């Protein structure tokens, strides 16, 4: 960004040549460089102090036995090598949390993307008239506070009088006690998360769809391709960068799955909905900073690897 703005004024000077012009130009560039540094300095300082510093600090923390009581004398703590990482990986609940998170991601991400894409296609092709209204309606859960959403979903998922079980009873199904059941608690949270998050992926898909020129589809139509074929062999390949973007951002968000179990189930019943982020948060609360930061970095590495794989699979060929 900054280098682009720096080079922009050079363009008209291109034509001029000769030593005088050259030296004038490098002097101007020096001043511009200095100005750029001065102008970016506040950001650089803030970045170092509040992003890079703490991140490196927490990485260091993950190799120590730092506990809450040591916070007043943090340089006197002992290095413990990788033992926090070992402890985290041996922790039964942490492993359960990792499995739960994998479950959530593997089911939740495809569902979210499929729903988002379907909604985007419908909005782009079908409902032209009320498009803005539907866009707002689908996006609304994304911007609504999780606490308000939790209250509503508790009504939906309530065992006897809940909306979902009432609807199920109309077709003769005796619905479970969603949030209190070991089997159904996680699907309930996935349902809620998909409903809550598909709107933002949908907006991005919609932008991607609207960026595809109508002529592409017309050409496909002339070649005799049916609507599913056009979608499968024209639209989806052209949407590849958009799909990459949404799957990466949704994937990262879902790997850090925290709020739904935190407000709805507190990880229960029987740890069936505890997530890695939530368990890490709990360890911070107990003052086990070493183990908690180690857990954070395990999650970080997993996210980095998965994102790398996604880029590999979905990049433009």
């Amino acid at each position, binding site marked *: 960004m900054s280098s682009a703005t720096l080079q922009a004024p050079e363009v008209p000077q291109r034509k001029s040549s000769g030593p005088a012009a050259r030296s004038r130009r490098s002097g101007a560039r020096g001043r511009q460089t200095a100005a750029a540094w001065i102008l970016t300095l506040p950001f650089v300082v803030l970045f170092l102090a*509040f*992003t890079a*510093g*703490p*991140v490196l*600090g*927490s990485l260091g*923390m993950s190799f120590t036995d*730092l*506990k*809450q*009581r*040591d*916070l*007043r*004398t*943090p*340089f*006197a*703590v002992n290095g413990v090598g990788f033992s926090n990482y070992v402890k985290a990986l041996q922790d039964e*609940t942490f492993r359960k949390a990792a499995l739960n998170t994998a479950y959530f991601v593997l089911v939740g991400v495809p569902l979210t993307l499929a729903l988002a894409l379907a909604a985007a296609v419908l909005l782009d092709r079908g409902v032209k008239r009320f498009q803005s209204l539907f866009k707002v309606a689908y996006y609304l859960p*994304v911007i609504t506070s999780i606490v308000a959403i939790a209250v509503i979903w508790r009504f939906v998922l*309530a*065992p006897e009088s809940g909306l979902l079980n009432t609807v199920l009873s109309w077709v003769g199904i005796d619905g479970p*006690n969603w*949030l*209190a059941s*070991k089997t159904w608690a996680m699907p309930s949270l996935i349902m809620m998360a998909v409903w809550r*998050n598909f709107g*933002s*992926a949908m907006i991005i898909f919609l932008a991607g769809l609207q960026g595809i020129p109508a002529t592409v589809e017309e050409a496909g139509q002339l070649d005799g391709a049916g609507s599913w074929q056009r979608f499968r062999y024209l639209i989806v390949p052209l949407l590849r960068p958009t799909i990459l973007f949404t799957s990466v*951002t*949704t994937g*990262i*968000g*879902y790997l*850090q*799955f*925290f*709020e739904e179990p935190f407000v709805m189930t*507190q990880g*229960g*019943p*029987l*740890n069936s909905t505890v997530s890695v*982020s939530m368990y*890490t*948060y*709990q360890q*911070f*609360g*107990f*003052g*086990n*900073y070493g183990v*908690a*930061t180690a857990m*954070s970095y395990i999650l970080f590495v997993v996210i980095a690897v998965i994102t790398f794989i996604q880029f590999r699979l979905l990049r433009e060929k």
Partner: protein
Amino acid sequence: MFTHTTRRRLVIGGAALTATALALTGCGRSADSGDSAPKATTSIGDGPATGELSVWAMGTEGENLPKLTAAFEQANPGVKVKVTPIPWDAAHSKFTTAITAQTVPDAAMVGTTWMGEFADLDALDPTPASIDTSGFFEGANETTKVGETSYGVPWYVETRLVYYRKDLAAKAGITTPPTDWDGLKAMAKAMKEKAGAKYGINLQPGGTGSWQTVMPFAWSAGAAITGDDQKEFTFDTPEMQEGLKYYQSFFTDKLAGTDLPPNQTEAQFVSGQVPMFISGPWMAGSVAKLGGEKIKPNIGVFQLPKNKTATSFVGGSNFVVFKNSKNKDSAWKLVKWLSDAKTQAQWFKLSTDLPAVKSAWEDPSIASDPLLPVFGKQLEDAKAPPAIVNWEQVATAFDAEVEKMAKSGQSPADTAKAIQTKAASIGTGS
């Protein structure tokens, strides 16, 4: 999708805390972790309190306390008390952050189970000898002690009783409340079979805070959380197993349910679905609020049933003075005034928090209440967990194992063993 911000904040927050702590305190682990019990350094002077006092209090206490401290300011014209109300769910982290950054108030209300942790952080001032603690309930007094040293005074207390529907008990043929374990079981059974209840009694099937209902049964059977020196956990004992076994039997006999939605205790009590539960004094109010005038005469309470003892849980809050306070003398004067029987009775009228001082219970506002004197009697036999630094963490492990026992049939012996193993690996933290 936006959860990453939350987590990032946590990681960065943790590190920023470290950086702040570094900047504020310099480095080097302090060498004052000696074994000798700290002695009180403050003695309270005779004159009136002076200067400015900052006080933190949580929840409704934080909102109501200024009304009380206004009277303190009138009696001590030179003093100015500033109360900062803090929401309960943010309180613990606010305290630990303030302790680390040394920006603590002069005095504060502190949850009883936090005492060990805060004392371990070397934040609390030992109670001056001139404060007489003999008038407090013994169980409440114990919550101020960490090791041999007392930090602060009990401010208000609560304990747990068995609530029951009088009308439904009559229908079930029970005229006098039970006094022993078999009696309680028989009553729950009668409620279910004769009074048309879905379950006889509402017991928490594990989950946050369930240890507060389970431990009284274990205590009553003679169990203890730690040995006398508070260094080793003693969860895996026959007494603990007996308590767990009794608790589990309510679930295996279908007298208590694992499938009830949480936070519906009042509603199920009012509807008669589950006409008994074990809880603290605030429940009388919230049941009456939900059920209206019709339910009021039908709310009954009785003391926990007896095995070896009939021990209940004692909770509440203490009032402490911080070591870093600049105005300790006046802060302790405020604390002393708050623990005076007259002030405590007045505070009950403002807040309905039960007094920690026994003599305050003679005030007619409490003595003439149909339910409250029973709580007073139960307080004579009520316990709190020892002030262990890592208690919150041990309690979480305890709750998780109780959940396995209630919901998936883990045996009481395995449960006791699992709690012991987990607690031992967490450690007492001292």
